[in-house]
């Protein structure tokens, strides 16, 4: 009986998580292959006729190939934001961890505030308009960096605590200037937590819906999440195309996650266990 209990508990957990994670995904995939009538019922019934390819073409061609533009925009935003996040967060984390000063507590407060206090949308838009960054991709990149910086800094700081100080000192004796020390000795050692950061943040930024909605209006600035609006209107919604769109948008982060999920867990716990 004692050996059975973990097995039973494990099975129950599997079933519960299956219901939470797999069933919705299956539902999306199912609706995506149905025709308009079939999908509007929004149930699990098997499609009377499948039109996967037709739906795919319709979604991609909608509004003059807007989805492709959206993929391009989202990719640009994601790549540049994540690059900026990795470099800035690693630097801030390093300085916070290694060089205690009277400013540290204020910086720590700012980092925590960044995590806890929800960003105010209207003042941010006003500020962006004043400095001419509203409705621009680079403005959006800066917003994503600012909003996600705190989390990345905390990850980096915990990890940097596990890098022995002797290495810094050895590099100083070898003649490394601060920037050389950081880029040639410290940053390469942060690879595990950098992978974690890249994966977690790129998924979050690629999937971001609300921030591009507020800060990046305009037909040419559309990001993948905003293309979901293409198939919804006040009086009718084309569910089969909407779900096909969801499916297409979900695939890139899903691939990233499947390939890197081991590194995510390693990077998240590496700082915590040894720290």
């Amino acid at each position, binding site marked *: 009986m004692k050996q059975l209990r973990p097995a039973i508990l494990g099975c129950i957990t599997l079933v519960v998580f299956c219901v939470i994670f797999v069933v919705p995904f299956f539902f999306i995939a199912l609706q995506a292959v149905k025709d308009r009538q079939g999908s509007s019922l929004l149930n699990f019934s098997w499609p009377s006729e499948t039109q996967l390819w037709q739906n795919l073409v319709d979604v991609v061609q909608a509004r003059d190939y807007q989805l492709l533009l959206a993929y391009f925009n989202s990719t640009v935003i994601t790549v540049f934001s994540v690059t900026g996040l990795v470099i800035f967060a690693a630097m801030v984390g390093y300085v916070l961890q290694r060089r205690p000063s009277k400013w540290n507590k204020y910086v720590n407060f700012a980092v925590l505030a960044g995590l806890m206090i929800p960003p105010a949308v209207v003042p941010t838009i006003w500020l962006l308009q004043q400095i001419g960054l509203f409705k621009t991709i680079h403005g959006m990149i800066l917003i994503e960096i600012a909003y996600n910086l705190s989390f990345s800094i905390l990850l980096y700081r915990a990890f940097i605590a596990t890098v*022995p100080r*002797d*290495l810094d*000192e*050895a*590099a*100083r*004796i*070898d*003649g*490394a200037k601060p920037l*050389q020390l950081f880029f*040639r*000795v410290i940053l*390469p*050692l942060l*690879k595990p937590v950098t992978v974690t950061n890249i994966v977690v943040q790129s998924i979050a930024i690629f999937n971001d819906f609300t921030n591009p909605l507020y800060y990046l209006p305009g037909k040419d600035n559309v990001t993948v999440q905003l293309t979901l609006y293409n198939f919804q209107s006040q009086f009718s919604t084309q569910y089969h195309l909407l779900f096909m769109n969801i499916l297409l948008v979900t695939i890139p982060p899903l691939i990233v996650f499947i390939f890197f999920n081991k590194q995510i867990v390693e990077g998240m716990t590496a700082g915590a266990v040894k720290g």
Partner: protein
Amino acid sequence: MSGLELKKVCKSYGAVEVIKDLSLQIESGEFVVFVGPSGCGKSTLLRMIAGLEDCSGGTVEIGGEDVTDAEPSDRGIAMVFQSYALYPHMSVRDNIGFGLSLAKTPKAEMNARVEEAAKILQLTDYLDRKPKALSGGQRQRVAIGRAIVRNPKVFLFDEPLSNLDAALRAKMRLELTELHANLNVTMVYVTHDQVEAMTMADKIVVLNKGVIEQVGKPMDLYNNPATAFVAGFIGSPQMNLLEGAAARKLGAEIYGIRPEHIDISRESGLWRSTVRQIERLGNDAILYLDVEDVGSLTVTTDGQTDVVIGDMLFATPQPQNEHRFPTIAR
């Protein structure tokens, strides 16, 4: 010349004084060992020489040049850390050559110097490995190699052997001594192990609570310890130090006699004692004796001795090897 001179250096963290007004002269080419118990400030002193810690006062001169405020890399020193501090993501070659590549040394010269250091340290076959694929002794040698290529005026070692096992430690001790003989540069070595200090040093500096207790050649320190602290620290097993009435009876505040300078006999002697414990090391044996009114006494004797626990023995110090100290050990 590449000597080293400390003039009245001190170091304090807030109100805590770690190094107090310490002055020391180290000649060019000397192998100097700083030795002392944990927390005596020996590592801090070494880090001050390296420039990793600021001096709260005083000056540090290397090769006649005041380097008190110079960057570590501008002092002409190289340091070997206890943890080796190898860069884990670089190969042995890159580890050794890192300092040179930062100094923008031409590639050909860099390779030549790295190969040369590797040859001295027998690392040639391992140049393209990462540190994690090396054994403890090899890692230690890479750390030394990194120091050699910098061509420093002074080598600094911070307890470099304490992470190695006993057999390897003895081997590396010998290698370091030979390296010193070959390179003929000034070396400053920090350890808490008095065996390392005795075997390797030209000059031992005994530190206690941030103050120099005594400076001298190893055998001078062994034969003529200036204070009870040095007497207790140098020599293994430890010198017997008697205080109070037992010491006063022998004419001193503190009376010291080394375990190897006590004769034992079954018939007669100064102290009547019983054997509490015996440690047999093969070539000799260490007896722990209980002496009435005196306390515990350690005696080294012949390894083949037939003494057993509980025996009654008489112990007598050799008069020419007695040490008398005026004040209480700090």
